[in-house]
């Protein structure tokens, strides 16, 4: 905490430097235009389609592929891993570091951005590039997924494909809900962050948000449902006191796959937890579980099978 | 001879841009002097003449580039720091503390060299401190905070601390040879004091010398201090000894005029 002022100092210096560099750049640019005129820029021909979509939102990228707009996608965010086709696409930054120049140079006809990216949105508006605002929903997060898919369909003239894909997901979610029926809902803690090898820095799903809704849809009772936050830092005491019957931990970051058994064993220290006693601690590495995209039905089925089979 | 310095040369080394040592500007050059036991010797010289540096060399605080200092026949440089501190105490021009110590705590700090690593001050140490406070007339200040004292009071307390440091009573510390012969070094003890405190400190030093028989080397600008206190005097100019000898003969108008590069006629009245 005491590093605060030094950090601001550096930041201030950086800002000054950047401003100076920017000014210098302007001067150069102006002289270039005056001197020889702007050089004509080649449009990169990565796809034959006239529609060119850039997505800064991994969940939205998945949706685009699900509604059949995959061939239109020309660039994705630095965090996109799915579907496999995105591996070869250019990366244009993400939430906090979108690369405006690269986005422009790709001549997109639609850019999918987080609605909180005000600066980027303003600049894209100035460049008269259509923008799709992706909304991160805290309540109604599952419904938001299929809604967003339909809106993307409308925006890209793929209404039919979007409707089919969205309806399928809704049907599959309903199937899961039906399968849950009147089964007793096990009290479940859905953990998605923890220091490796230790029971510290534990974060779990609270009573709102996509993971919470997924858990309840799949027939679980959220152990922290009374705390109206998407992410709750859980102390050992609170975890013990809530006595969850099932504990599901998501370790979805790259590189965590190899440590599943060791990390599951870490929980054995809390042997009085019903979940530990009954061997109902599950560690999952499937990244689809942490993305509110078209794979939510599959995620719900996975959670259902862990809690009810 | 109790304290003998031979051919002392010293300069503060600076590093050049390429990390090579540049030949130091010499601050003390080929200084030799001898101080008999129980004498009071004054170092007199203008600002920058090397008085403080010479005192640091004599007390073992600095290592000479060449030359030696012997205390009671022992080479100061090779004496363990603690054993040296039991024999030689230094009163600096000014003493500051980063925190608020009481006067008693300041004086007890003088007992550091007599105590083992985890040892707590015993009865003997407290007696030494009380005696030192009484000898310097500061017993009534014992519980005052040092930074709240006046300049003269501070100087007397630091002298008390030095006295406690040289007090060899009731020691069980190993390696002590039982010698009572100690050296007190005072660096411009009256420099920052007004007339009243100057006189007080002069009287105190003279009193201590008479009662305790401690050997004293002091530096000063003040001719009155030299005349009032010193048996002999060393005149230091640009790091070299200009003259040395008994106060009565050495403190002549001609030598003082040469020492400070002033007109002899101006100096004569000061020497009475």
């Amino acid at each position, binding site marked *: 905490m005491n*590093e605060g002022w030094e950090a601001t100092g550096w930041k201030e210096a950086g800002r000054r430097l950047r401003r100076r560099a920017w000014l210098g750049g302007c001067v150069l640019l102006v002289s270039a235009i005056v001197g020889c005129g702007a050089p004509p820029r080649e449009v990169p021909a990565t796809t034959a389609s006239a529609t060119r979509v850039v997505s800064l939102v991994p969940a939205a990228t998945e949706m685009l592929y699900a509604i059949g707009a995959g061939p239109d996608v020309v660039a994705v965010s630095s965090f996109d891993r799915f579907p496999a086709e995105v591996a070869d696409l250019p990366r244009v930054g993400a939430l906090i570091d979108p690369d405006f120049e690269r986005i422009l140079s790709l001549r997109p006809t639609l850019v999918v951005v987080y609605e909180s990216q005000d600066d980027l949105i303003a600049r894209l508006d100035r460049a008269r590039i259509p923008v799709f605002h992706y909304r991160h929903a805290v309540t109604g997060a599952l419904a938001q997924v299929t809604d967003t898919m339909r809106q993307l369909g409308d925006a890209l003239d793929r209404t039919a494909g979007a409707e089919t894909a969205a309806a399928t997901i809704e049907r599959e979610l309903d199937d899961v809900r039906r399968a849950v029926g009147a089964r007793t809902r096990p009290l479940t803690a859905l953990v998605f962050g923890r220091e*490796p090898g230790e029971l510290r820095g534990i974060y779990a799903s609270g009573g709102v948000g996509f993971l919470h809704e997924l858990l309840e849809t799949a027939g679980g009772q959220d152990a922290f449902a009374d705390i109206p936050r998407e992410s709750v830092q859980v102390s050992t005491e609170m975890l013990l*006191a809530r006595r969850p019957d099932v504990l599901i931990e998501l370790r979805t970051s790259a590189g965590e796959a190899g*440590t599943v058994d060791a990390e599951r064993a870490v929980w054995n220290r809390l*042997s009085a937890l019903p979940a530990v006693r009954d061997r109902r601690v599950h560690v999952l590495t499937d990244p689809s579980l942490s993305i509110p995209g078209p794979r939510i039905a599959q995620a719900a089925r996975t959670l259902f099978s862990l809690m009810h089979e | 001879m109790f304290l003998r310095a031979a051919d002392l040369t010293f300069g503060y080394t600076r590093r050049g841009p390429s990390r090579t040592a540049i030949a130091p500007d010499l601050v003390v050059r080929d200084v030799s002097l001898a101080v008999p036991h129980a004498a009071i010797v004054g170092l007199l010289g203008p600002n920058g003449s090397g008085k403080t540096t010479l005192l640091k060399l004599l*007390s073992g605080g600095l290592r000479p580039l060449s030359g030696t200092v012997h205390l009671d026949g022992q080479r100061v440089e090779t004496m363990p720091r603690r054993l040296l501190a039991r024999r030689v105490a230094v009163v600096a021009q000014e003493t500051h503390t980063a*925190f608020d110590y009481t006067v*008693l*705590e300041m004086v007890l700090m003088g007992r550091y060299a007599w105590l083992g690593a985890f040892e707590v001050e015993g009865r003997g140490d407290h007696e030494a401190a009380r005696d030192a406070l009484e000898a310097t007339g500061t017993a009534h200040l014992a519980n005052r905070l040092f930074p709240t004292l006046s300049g003269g009071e501070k100087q007397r307390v630091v002298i008390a601390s030095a006295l406690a440091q040289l007090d060899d009573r009731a020691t069980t510390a190993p390696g002590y040879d039982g010698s009572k012969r100690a050296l007190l070094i005072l660096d411009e003890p009256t420099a920052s004091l007004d007339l009243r405190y100057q006189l007080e400190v002069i009287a105190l030093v003279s009193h201590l010398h008479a009662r305790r028989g401690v050997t004293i080397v002091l530096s000063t600008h003040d001719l009155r201090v030299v005349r009032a206190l010193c048996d002999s005097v060393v005149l230091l100019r640009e790091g070299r000894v200009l003259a040395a000898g008994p106060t009565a003969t050495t403190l002549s108008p001609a030598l003082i005029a040469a020492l400070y590069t002033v007109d002899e006629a101006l100096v004569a009245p000061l020497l009475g």
Partner: protein
Amino acid sequence: MARTLTQRMVVVAGLVSMALAVCLAPLIGSTTLSLTRAFDRTIPFADNLDAQIFFLARLPRVLAAAMVGGTLAAAGTVFQALLQNPLATPYTLGVSAGASLGAMIVITIGATLPLVGVTGASLAGATLAVLVVYALAQARHRGLSTTVLLLAGVTLNACFSALILFVQYLGDAMQTFRAIRWLMGSLDVAGYGPLVAAFPFIAIAFLAFAWLARPLDLLTLGADAAASRGVDVTQTQRVAFFSASLATGAAVSVAGPIGFIGIIVPHLVRLVVGASHRIVLPAATCFGATFLVLCDTVARTAMAPLELPVGIITAMIGGPFFLWLLVRAR
């Protein structure tokens, strides 16, 4: 002497308050539990939920608070004496920035290095910072220059802060959030492992502190004055620097860089008992421990079931107090 009596009473009061805090704080928590069940030896520990809440969640946490609080307060005292600067903190010389950088690296990209925990990495980072600062302070001088120490420490703090920002920038939103949360400090150690790991370092440091108490007093008079009274100044500075850094590194690895304890507790103690390190060090240790136990009790109960970062509590109490200390008429 009246003063010595007050001093002794303050140390005794510190010991009593620390003992009370450590005994009473585990009884308070965000949940209610049955003490009779917690201490019922007929129920096997593996099945005794109350016992697990008491012995796995609360007790180690209170002990961690006492250990970290006492250590930071004592280390702060030593740094202030070493640098002869009342505004020094355990974090002034970059130890915590190094520890934080280590922790940030593991939290952000550490998923690929499963063998190194956050604790180990922060200890490694602290060690790196200590060695760099020491090498710099040693480079141009025989012995340690406190001015160079201070400048090297402050500069290293700035460099490490930049690196911390850089590492956080590499992470995704969740990792960055966890990293920032780590910087606020947490004492939820969930067992005795981190305490046992840190204890040897802290024990060695406190042994050194006990030895340092007297020479530190003399060091605050200045290097020359200390040397002429028989203190081996370079050795004392070295021992002070390494032991206080060791203690700080261990404390930060347990709980993150919890602020303000290392500065307000020593000053508060000095106001009451004076400057002598033989009194200030033990008193600061006891009151630092008590203070952090109290702050953490507030942190885990004030907004239950949500938990406040303990660093926010210490800063909210410590900041205003420190300002008062600065403007206080002398």
